[in-house]
């Protein structure tokens, strides 16, 4: 005899529950944590290097790096002064999820850190769907990617608390209409903290560092 069972359960529930556990663990240690997302080549690792260069004397920083393969990014973070740098190789998965971050957190004594930076896999689609349990999600857009990305990847642009626009030193050389880009961002995520920067010239990075510093010590 057939019958219908009503369920109405969010498909991401299992991941979201684990993300909450991760958050509990991070909160208990008093660490401020960010989830850095971007397409490949937007400058995630460069932003981390520049951030470390400005903060290693002030903060104890751990970096967790997600990549499909290699430990190149974790090695760069370690070389730039991260006190701990853990590589997660996702083995083909296009994103980090809460289970993977939990595995990395188990390797860290979180009480020894002030700031946890999680570098997600380079991808503008999948990471948006998987919460990790970090306090803030940060998206790095970059000028050469084009100004249409908010319109093409609304799921990613609407789910973040801060937006870095990297490689602004290239604005004179590419056809990137900042107004058009910002209009899309505004409709999807009004009032999001936005930081136009260049990792090459250092322009704008001070504001990004100020925002980070303003959050450390008052997570959540």
């Amino acid at each position, binding site marked *: *005899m*057939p*019958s*219908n*069972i*009503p*369920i*109405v*359960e*969010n*498909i*991401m*529930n*299992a*991941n979201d529950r684990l993300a909450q556990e991760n958050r509990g663990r991070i909160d208990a240690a008093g660490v401020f944590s960010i989830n850095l997302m971007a397409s490949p080549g937007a400058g995630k690792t460069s932003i981390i290097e520049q951030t470390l260069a400005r903060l290693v004397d002030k903060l104890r920083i751990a970096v967790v790096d997600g990549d499909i393969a290699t430990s190149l990014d974790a090695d760069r973070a370690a070389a730039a002064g991260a006190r701990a740098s853990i590589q997660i190789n996702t083995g083909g*998965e*296009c*994103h980090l*999820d809460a289970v993977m971050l939990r595995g990395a957190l188990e390797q860290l004594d979180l009480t020894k850190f002030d700031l946890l930076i999680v570098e997600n896999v380079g*991808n503008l*689609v*999948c990471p*948006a*769907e*998987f919460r990790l349990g970090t306090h803030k999600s940060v998206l790095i857009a970059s000028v050469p990617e084009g100004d*249409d990305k908010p*319109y093409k990847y*609304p*799921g990613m642009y*609407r789910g973040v608390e801060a937006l870095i626009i990297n490689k602004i030193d290239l604005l004179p050389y590419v056809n990137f209409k900042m107004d058009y880009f910002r*209009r*899309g961002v*505004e*409709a*999807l995520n*009004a009032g999001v903290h936005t930081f136009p920067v260049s990792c090459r010239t250092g322009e704008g990075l001070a504001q990004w560092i100020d925002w980070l510093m303003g959050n450390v010590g008052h997570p959540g």
Partner: protein
Amino acid sequence: MHELPVTQSILEISLRHAQQAGAKRITDLYLLIGQLSYVVDDSVQFYWDMIAKGTIAEGATLHFQRVPVEFLCLDCDRRYPVDGENLACPRCGSTRVKVASGDEFRLESIDVETGDAADLNLVEK
């Protein structure tokens, strides 16, 4: 590319509810997926056929109901469909908007066979 973990999650949820209801077999699953969720229906069904093998959900059919994206203007209360580049409110031009629909990602219900008429009182429509 992330359809495998999504499919695993759907299987876990449906098996749990079927078990609670004492079902012998799951025949159909009804999913509500907003257009803001990047999931490819065919890929989910493909993974489903692999990972549901050997469970009471083997061979079940997945039904996808897609929900179009609509924004609600916070300035003039207009609710409007969103397609491509036109994100701002078509009536007043405001970009103070919120997503009214399109971010659903839920398993709504499942059809099951209980095999035992006595079990049906609780779950029958």
